[in-house]
């Protein structure tokens, strides 16, 4: 089986397990909606409006929390019943498992972020069409970078090296530059001022995180 086939097999296996595990992804989405609810109660109306009716940057709090919880859910798939041993022993190319896990995390993150954004549109009273357009254009790139980091360090959770409470401390500082750039792009997209340079910087971060993740995943799994 070639690397691409293994990546696809890994991703579909994990997604199937997550869908069959009662409430895994639902838990993540519900937490995201609860955070949006708290934000809508706590923030002034001016703070819940992004520029041009787009989702406000404050939503990134909800995106980050659901992301970390999502990484823990996907890492648990291999931790249970020592499925990690099969991952260690399989003769696939070193980066193939990483890309499979990355695909799963991207799907889970996008799904959860969509639920969060939908809740924000309703509770913050955002322009639905504009918010959806900005969401589809901007967020997948940001979530890809976040998923790349989370996939790498959740290898520590899977192998039992890292405790779950340390995952946030590890992932969040590394993701901060990406989050800052994403917030800027989100704001600028809403007002129509986003430039190629903004998108280019985000893509550069994504490429960098994915490259580091692909190289370092296998040693972390085997540690």
């Amino acid at each position: 089986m070639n690397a691409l086939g293994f990546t696809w097999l890994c991703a579909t296996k994990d997604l199937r397990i997550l869908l069959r595990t009662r409430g895994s992804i639902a838990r993540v989405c519900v937490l995201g909606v609860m955070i949006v609810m708290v934000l809508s109660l706590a923030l002034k109306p001016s703070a819940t409006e992004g520029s041009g009716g787009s989702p406000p940057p404050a939503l990134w709090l909800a995106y980050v929390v659901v992301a970390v919880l999502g990484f823990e859910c996907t890492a648990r798939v291999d931790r249970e019943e020592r499925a990690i041993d099969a991952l260690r022993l399989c003769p696939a190319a070193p980066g193939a498992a990483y890309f499979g896990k990355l695909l799963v995390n991207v799907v889970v993150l996008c799904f959860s972020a969509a639920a969060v954004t939908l809740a924000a549109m309703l509770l913050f009273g955002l322009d639905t069409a504009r918010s959806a357009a900005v969401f589809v254009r901007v967020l997948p790139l940001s979530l890809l970078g976040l998923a790349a980091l989370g996939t790498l360090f959740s290898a520590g959770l899977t192998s039992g090296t890292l405790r779950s409470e340390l995952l946030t401390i590890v992932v969040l500082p590394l993701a901060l530059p990406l989050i800052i750039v994403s917030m800027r792009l989100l704001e600028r997209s809403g007002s129509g001022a986003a430039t190629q340079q903004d998108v280019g910087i985000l893509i550069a971060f994504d490429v960098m995180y994915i490259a580091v993740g692909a190289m370092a995943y296998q040693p972390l799994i085997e540690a």
Partner: protein
Amino acid sequence: MNPPLRQIEHAAWVLGGLAAIGCVAAVHLVPVEATMGPAQKLFYLHVPAATCMLLACVGTFLGDLGYLWQRRSIWSVVALASAEVAVGLSAVVLISGMVWGRFAWGHWWTWSPRLTFSLVLALLYSAYLILYRGIASPRKRALFCAIYGVAAFVDVPLVYLSTKLLPDIHPAGVTVDPRMRATLMLCMITVMVLSLAATMLRVRHGLRRTQGEELPPEPEQTSVTQVR
């Protein structure tokens, strides 16, 4: 630790202490800057601390690369020691910068690129220290922290280049009076020597802690036919 290295460390502490006394005298004697007044003298602490902070981050990066290359614990100890010094210096940089900013700009903090990335740097290396103490196994701890440290180094060029590439309230460079430049150089050397001494002290403690935990070499691959 090697006795000669210990002597070098002690000499560095003595030299650094004497230089610090010289710095205090020099800062007291150097003329007061015309627009910002006495608060400007924080410049002689802030700039050397920032420079040494970035150098300490480079030390951590090199230590982590060395560990990933050779898998020897000495590299991990050097990386941790450099990270500890980097976190200490980042606290000095942020606090001195905030006090200076309060006098220069009228507020303690602003989300300018240089300040934002500096705060991110402090958080990154604080997380490095938390991670180091959060993993029990020496081999796993060293590997995990090495990978984290290499990834965390991304922020160092962002801190350095932020004022050059993006509009920022933080100055990218300043022109100073020759006497101020001489005082700055003296303070720079002092902080560098003291940072080096602190790093050597932490390396010594780290080597003592890891004595006997020298990571065994990677196990040799055995073929199936050799297994009975």
